[in-house]
């Protein structure tokens, strides 16, 4: 058997398989090393008492799972997620759709407004959260929100520290809305631009009134696939909420029990001072299962991937 030197195999007649691995290999290797191996290791750790160690020897079976499910801090974090989703999914959906409809109707400067609304998506969650926390919604007299409210005689409000009423939700939801709405607007805009103008013409000929009637009977049904994808992405993103919660609500002494989403709780359990990697891993596995079940259930409910009748 003769061996062709690597150089001539690369530079000679195109060897598509070889080039596939040259380009994909490093990234596939990274995926395996930094995603699949840690995932498998995390599942392994979840069956051990693993305080401050990643190579434990104290097998505890499903004890970490049962204690996590009985742990009110973990179940409370799931409730926090549910409340957050109930706020953020519909508001982002409606706002981004409204922005898309407005921008789509513009005859001039459409690219400008598209860029303006999309730009916040390029901002880091950490930076945005710090601006919201330190500049707009700080609790003292020189915070922007308190200054404006002060003009109308309203007392200073500790936006992030008050639980009754829970003003912190206003801060958390608005920062995510500002960051995300532009991105989903682009998805809706793409969906809107795929709708054939002949449909609107036919509707007009049939006497459909422009505005709500056309939106309800033509536009929204035509956006069904986009809407399903946007909803799925919003729910998964809500599950993965971490950055803005952590940066808005954590202090040097820890994180308050209110508005603590699952990932923040698991971060403190596994990687924070607690260093309980077994319990944290069990929580991560449980959370992954919940996300998978919810996503599959949601996809089936919306008929994602089903052929159009």
């Amino acid at each position, binding site marked *: 058997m003769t061996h062709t030197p690597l150089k001539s195999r690369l530079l000679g007649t195109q060897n598509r398989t070889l080039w596939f691995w040259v*380009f994909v290999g490093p990234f596939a290797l990274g995926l395996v090393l930094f995603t699949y191996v840690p995932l498998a290791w995390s599942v392994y750790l979840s069956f051990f008492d693993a305080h401050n160690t990643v190579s434990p020897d104290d097998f505890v079976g499903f004890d970490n799972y049962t204690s996590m499910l009985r742990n009110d801090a973990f179940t409370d974090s799931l409730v926090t997620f549910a409340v957050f989703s109930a706020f953020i999914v519909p508001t982002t959906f409606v706002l981004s759709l409204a922005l898309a409809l407005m921008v789509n109707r513009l005859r001039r400067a459409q690219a400008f407004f598209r860029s303006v609304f999309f730009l916040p998506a390029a901002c880091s969650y950490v930076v945005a959260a710090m601006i919201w926390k330190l500049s707009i919604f700080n*609790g003292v007299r020189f915070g922007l929100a308190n200054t404006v409210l002060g003009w109308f005689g309203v007392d200073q409000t500790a936006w992030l*520290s008050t639980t*009754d009423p829970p003003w912190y939700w206003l801060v958390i939801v608005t920062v995510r809305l500002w960051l995300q709405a532009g991105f989903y607007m682009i998805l809706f805009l793409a969906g809107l631009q795929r709708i054939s103008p002949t449909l609107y013409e036919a509707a007009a000929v049939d006497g459909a009134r422009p505005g709500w009637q056309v939106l309800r009977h033509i536009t929204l049904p035509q956006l069904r696939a986009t809407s399903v994808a946007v909803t799925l992405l919003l729910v998964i993103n809500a599950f993965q909420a971490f950055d803005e919660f952590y940066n808005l609500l954590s202090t040097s*002494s820890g994180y308050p029990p209110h508005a603590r989403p699952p990932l923040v709780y698991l971060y403190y359990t596994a990687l924070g001072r607690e260093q309980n990697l077994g319990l944290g891993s069990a929580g991560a596995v449980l959370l992954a299962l919940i996300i998978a079940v919810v996503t599959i259930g949601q996809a089936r409910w919306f008929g994602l991937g089903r052929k159009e009748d």
Partner: protein
Amino acid sequence: MAISRRTLLGTGATGAALGLLTACGSNTGRDGGGSGGKGPRLAQWYHQYGEPGTEQAVKRYAAAYKKADVSVQWRPGNYDEQTAAALLTESGPDVFEVNGPSLDQIREGQVVDLTDLFDGVKDDFNPVVLAPKTYDGKIWAIPQVVDMHLLYYRKSLLDDAGVEPPQSLDELVDAAKALTTKDVKGLFLGNDGGAGALGVTPLYAAGLSSVTEDGRVGFDDPAAARTLGKLRQLYADKSLLLGAPADWSDPSAFVQELTAMQWCGLWALPAVKKELGDDFGVLALPADGSGGKPSLPVGSYGAAVSARSDHKEAAKDFLKWLWVDRTEYQEDFALSYGFHIPARLSLAKKADKLKEGAAADAVRYSTEYGYSEPLLWTPASRTAYQDALSRIIKSGANPESEVKSVVRKVRAELDRVKKKS
């Protein structure tokens, strides 16, 4: 030489792959930037101090050591989490500053026994801060400096309101209310209302403890709920400053007159003195109930050696040189930049800066009223307790049921650690 597109792409892809793999490493401080001393290369980690000059000082100490090449890393961010994670790998530090070590870190064998470094000098270390570094009769870190939390109050604001410095928790609640105006709040205990910064200090002020010396829950007592309920009163009265741009560990809110009283650290004393002159005083958290006494937490960052270090003996030698033998560096580190009490009793006694004014009061309080968190007060117990305290303060949760719930959790945690002993 002309480079074809194919050659360029191939080279680029190979370079990217190599770059990806080399980027997987991290800067451990073992490469470059060392002190240049002979002997093995040691990586030494510190958390980022806020006081100017501290970083240069510790680099100067390291440079003066000639038996090893010591490379100092100044690490901003969540330092405790960083070191905890680094100790699991081969790429962690050899020598590091630790806010502990924790019981689990000691029992997992992540730190080296340093007991022999204390031969002949153990009695000169402050026993309050040495105790939490001691487990199983062995010492696992060398206390560097003594720190404490204190209640700062603005004398002129108290005088204007006709308020005396509070001597009991009830008086503190009343004083905070009396000092609250439209623009100035009475008291700042941190943006979380005090759950994190005060921690278990109110329990000690009530004459209780977090964990007793014989390893039982120290606050299974009705006095605990009574005392913690009073912290809710501060919140309900709207006497607490909440949402300040800088949290409790920074004196900004106090010197900017956003609050008349603030729970802060001894480290803030020079900054407060610079801004306010003598217009301030310090107190421990006042006592509550007939069995209580004023209370404040005393703690210490320590210097430890990682058990994964390839140069454990060299690292121990360096620590002995720096934190046992070179007392002039210890005094400089404690008092020339920030403001701390030297961990060595002999140094603390002769330090001029600690002999007058609020500093002298602080030193006296640390001796009379200071407590340190025991090793058995694990992070899991602390989190459960702080969560309950937060719910009591902010949500008005029932103190009795919250305390009962925490007692159950702490008892289970104590059972866990005892089982493994």
